[in-house]
């Protein structure tokens, strides 16, 4: 069964890679299988890990109030499925409103604290480990880059004069950032393809030690 699996996986891998030549039947078939299997995978895992393990096992021996709370969540979840039916589809707005509200409430605080407050603090507070002149220059550069980058994103004032100059410096920092991200993206994409070639030439063809 393992050998059959390897041959099948190789065929599917080549099927997807064939898209590089041009769109074709084999690629489309692989794509359809991928969509179906992915949907099924998520469907099953969410059933066993969530509904069974979290909900069903969670209510076993739980206090009545906790049980009621969990049943309420299931009721909201079922309301989500009403979207499949035109007449009662509006009921799905309730769980949707819950998801939106919870996400908004949590993000408002977590993003403000971790991604704004702490970051501003780290930008203006010299770290205790700052010993060499290089460290000091780096610290100042980070502060300048962050400040100018933020100015660039501030569109309520026209980018002119000193403000425009700072915004320009901000763009330079952002460009270096995007360049670094591009470099890392190349590394990432190549790694993923390496993984597939490793499978084809190693596991399937057996050419790699």
């Amino acid at each position, binding site marked *: 069964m393992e050998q059959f699996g390897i041959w099948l996986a190789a065929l599917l891998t080549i099927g997807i890679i064939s898209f590089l030549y041009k769109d074709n039947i084999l690629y489309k078939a692989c794509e359809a299988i991928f969509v179906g299997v992915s949907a099924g995978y998520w469907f*099953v895992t969410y059933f066993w890990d969530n509904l069974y393990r979290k909900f069903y096992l969670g209510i076993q021996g739980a206090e009545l109030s906790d049980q009621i709370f969990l049943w309420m969540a299931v009721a*909201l979840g079922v309301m989500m499925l009403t979207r499949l039916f035109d007449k009662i589809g509006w009921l799905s707005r309730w769980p949707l409103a819950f998801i*939106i509200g919870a996400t*908004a409430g949590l993000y408002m605080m977590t993003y403000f604290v971790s991604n704004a407050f702490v970051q501003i603090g780290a930008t203006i507070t010299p770290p205790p480990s700052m010993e060499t002149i290089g460290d000091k220059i780096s610290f100042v550069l980070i502060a300048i880059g962050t400040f100018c980058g933020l100015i660039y994103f501030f569109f309520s004032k026209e980018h002119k004069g000193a403000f425009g100059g700072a915004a320009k410096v901000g763009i330079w920092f952002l460009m270096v950032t995007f360049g*670094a991200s591009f470099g890392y993206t190349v590394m990432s994409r190549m790694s993923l393809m390496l993984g597939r070639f490793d499978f084809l030439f190693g596991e399937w063809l057996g050419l790699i030690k």
Partner: protein
Amino acid sequence: MRREIPIAITFIVGVVFAVSYFIPREPFSEFESQFGDWFGIIAAFAIWLGAMNLMKISIVKIGRKSPDYFYSILIIVSFLMIVFFGFFEGYKGIYADPQFSYRDAGTGFNWIYEYIYSSLSATMFALLAFFVASASYRAFRARNLEATLLLISAFFVMFGRVPIGDMLTGWLPDGYTMSGWANWIMSVPNTAGQRAIMIGIALGLVSTSLRIILGLERSYLGGE
């Protein structure tokens, strides 16, 4: 009923999560915990909704004999195949002694995961490697100062993150080789740029979240 209740739900839940950050005590902490559980369960139903919708659309396509309906058949067959193994083995595993998971090595579900799902999903994303290279050749030009900065930064990072960079610049003092420059770019200008983006996004998120919680932003409710 159709708009007021959802707006009220958004407000109450949003306030609970925001306030419990500052007052992690009863009743806020209790509500925060319960709502945390709710989120996971509702998210699961949302996933099922997506899967069921996919089936619905595929069945309709087959019924209408739309062009390429053969692919819809493939979607349904592959969906049912993994769902069958997932439910059958999941059920079997619960009542087996010792219990096992439907995800364990040796199960049909894991076989599909390893040989079909993994290879398809991994190759699908891996294809981007070729398109990145093609784009580098055709579109990555140093047309102005900004693009040149981007290019130079990418050049140093790409060279510095693999051993050849250091092999070519090994004659330079320690810390000034390619990897040293790549490290510096990542930890100084990249950190500054990413931080500016991060702070900008965070402030935008705070204002949008406030608008949602206060009911000023209602687009998520759709029409009617």
